[in-house]
């Protein structure tokens, strides 16, 4: 077996030189310091993404993306297909855990200021990946075509309508008409299984390429410790640690999927009144809740519009933060970054909490 593998390696190496890659992998190391544990969030996000792809492909074998058949096909998956309940539950739970890990990964990168030169592009591809993940969540939420998803999508696409300048176009583009219908479902399905995966894969490859090329960033406060301690060799030492992290993540996921199976709800009825307790997925909740608190008009301007401008500006600041944070190049921790980060996290946390308490 080993002989065969060696022969195969040499066969490929003769045609496409693999030695530089092997050498790179052998040399690659991960800085070792007090906060090294935070590096795991990126790997965990990647792990959940892999699970999403695998379970998503399995769901595709039975899912039917029409208003007439979507709900029934998901119910069929959950009740009739062998281990279909597990696949769907893992898909739904790992989607949420993926977004959670991506959020945590981004927060740790932010506080460790790992976005600074020369890693701006890594931050941007990561930020776009987070947005794409939220896009996956938004489009995937509608696919079971149940009551809550239907009305939450109606509210979500209504909010999109308030976007400055392109709101009407955006709403029509997302819905495929004036209201959420079977056309929206087909469209969301297309985004979910074709458009977004293509974008995500491209961004992910770029993100990983940048990380490999530049290595892991070391926080300012840890440069001394990191220089004193030898880095952890990536293969096999760090990789084995990563595998432990993934195994733990898998155990958590298995427990969640088995103990709290993702519910199906009732089939969407566009003519029924909206049920109580409509709310978006938790990662959109802070925006939803903020918009709810805003008055109808603020200084003569529509409240929702002001809210969207606020989030738009916030989003742009977040995206271009590597260009904005140019202070303390000497390596000292930045008070501004900590303050802004904590304030943003507190705002998101409080609004999300209020969203849950309110419902």
């Amino acid at each position, binding site marked *: 077996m080993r002989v065969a593998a060696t022969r195969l390696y040499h066969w490929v190496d003769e045609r496409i030189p693999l030695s530089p890659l092997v050498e790179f992998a052998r040399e690659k190391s991960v800085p070792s310091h007090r906060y090294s544990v935070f590096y795991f969030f990126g790997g965990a996000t990647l792990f959940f993404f892999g699970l999403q792809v695998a379970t998503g492909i399995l769901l595709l074998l039975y899912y039917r993306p029409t208003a007439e058949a979507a709900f029934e096909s998901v*119910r069929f998956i*959950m*009740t009739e297909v062998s281990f279909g*309940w*597990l696949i769907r539950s893992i898909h739904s739970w790992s989607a949420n855990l993926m977004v959670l890990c991506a959020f945590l990964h981004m927060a740790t990168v932010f506080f460790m200021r790992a976005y600074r030169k020369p890693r701006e592009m890594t931050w941007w591809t990561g930020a776009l990946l987070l947005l794409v993940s939220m896009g996956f969540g938004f489009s995937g939420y509608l696919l079971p075509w149940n009551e809550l998803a239907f009305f939450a999508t109606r509210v979500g696409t209504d909010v999109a309508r308030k976007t400055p300048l392109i709101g009407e176009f955006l709403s029509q583009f997302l819905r495929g008409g004036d209201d959420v219908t079977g056309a929206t479902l087909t469209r969301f399905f297309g985004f979910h299984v074709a458009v977004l995966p293509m974008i995500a894969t491209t961004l992910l490859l770029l993100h990983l390429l940048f990380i490999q090329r530049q290595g892991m960033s070391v926080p300012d406060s840890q440069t001394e410790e990191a220089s004193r301690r030898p880095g952890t060799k990536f293969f*096999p*030492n760090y990789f*084995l*640690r990563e*595998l*432990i992290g993934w*195994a*733990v993540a*898998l*155990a958590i996921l*298995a*427990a969640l999927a*088995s*103990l*709290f*199976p*993702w*519910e*199906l709800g*009732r089939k969407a009825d566009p003519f029924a009144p909206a049920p109580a307790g409509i709310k978006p997925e938790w990662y959109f909740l802070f925006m939803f809740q903020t918009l709810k608190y805003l008055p109808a008009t603020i200084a003569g301007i529509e409240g929702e519009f002001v809210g969207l401008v606020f989030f738009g500006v916030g989003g742009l600041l977040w995206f271009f933060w590597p260009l904005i944070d140019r202070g303390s190049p000497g390596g000292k921790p930045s008070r501004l970054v900590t303050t802004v980060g904590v304030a943003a996290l507190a705002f998101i946390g409080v609004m999300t909490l209020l969203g849950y308490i309110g419902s």
Partner: protein
Amino acid sequence: MAWPLRFSVVVAGLLAFTVTVEGQNQRNNCIDCHRSLDDEELSQPARAAVDDVHASAGITCADCHGGNPTLEIVDEDYDPAKEPSTGFVGAPSVGDIPTFCGKCHADAAYMQRYDPNLPVDQLAQYWTSGHGKKLREGATDIAECVSCHGSHGMLAVSDPRAPVYPTKVAGTCGGCHADEEHMAPYGLPTDQMALHRESVHGRALYQDGDLSAPTCNTCHGNHGASPPGLSSVSLVCGNCHAIQRDFFTKSPHRAAFADLGEPECETCHGNHEVAPVTDELLGVAEGQICGECHFEDEEAYTIAKTLRQDIEELKARIAEARTTVEGAAVAGMEVSEAELILIDANQALVKARNTVHAVSADALREQTDTGRKLADQALEMGIAALGELQFRQKGLAVSVFFILLVVIGLYLKIQQIERPPRPTDE
């Protein structure tokens, strides 16, 4: 909007206003004079006419009372406007009111000009009613059109302020029928309105605001108001409770009640005080209705007991199935199909309750058997879902065990490769 268009709209508006004002300015001496009179009895009709359904349809005082309202009044002499040649009839006497109103309301051709949907048989019905008959006999303290609808300032039936609006009907009837002094000569009870208010029908009407809930005229009729006869009670109740009525007419109770001179539905349910129906009414124990007429040595006694037992058994089966299915649903299992079957089982229970009116143990059994089968089916699905849940939890425990083994193995591997070389190895 371009300015020529705006100009045209303004001109059109002014024209419409002018036409309206002109129409309203047509002389009506009746209103003008009566409104200024000091005598309340004479001035009230003119003031009340503002809101009147007839006035708003363009019907004037003279259309009902005759007279010439357009004649110019000279030296405050009103008599020429009320000369017999003008058809003046003034205020009709109580006995004449039905025909006074019926002059138009019983004329189909005339009524079609205003509202083709309005019935025109009120007058004919009225003469068949208890009220109409008494009026013809010469009674003057009897209800006629005005007693219920009012006279001037009359409102449409659909107007919530009208005395004949569903929520006001009982109060309007009660104006006479709850008055002991008024009813004494006729020997009629006066507690119907109070009983109705507390009944299941009254609560639906007044507390829930359900305007389709029955009030006095729903069962007694309105223009042809009369108490339903013994044999026609089930027809009255059956207007709404059709299924129960069908079962009742096939039941042995129908003939038995007729022989005994007992009213139909009313014998068990009461009339004005009809209470919300619960399963507690059924059976032979104390406080249960069947036991009031049937005793231990009768076959009917056994049937009544069986009916109650059958219903209770079905309820228990459904409750057991619901607890199991809900338990599985709370645990996150997909049991929507079992929930749908439970809805069908409940439907079977409702049908079984209706079938009780047939007082046939076999007929009831047929329904409860259907319900029991459905409840059992849902129960089986609930148990299967809970079994599946257990399987999943066990599967989880096994998989977590293996994952843990992998974690330990990886940890040991890391320890092995990172262990510093022993001095002897060097």
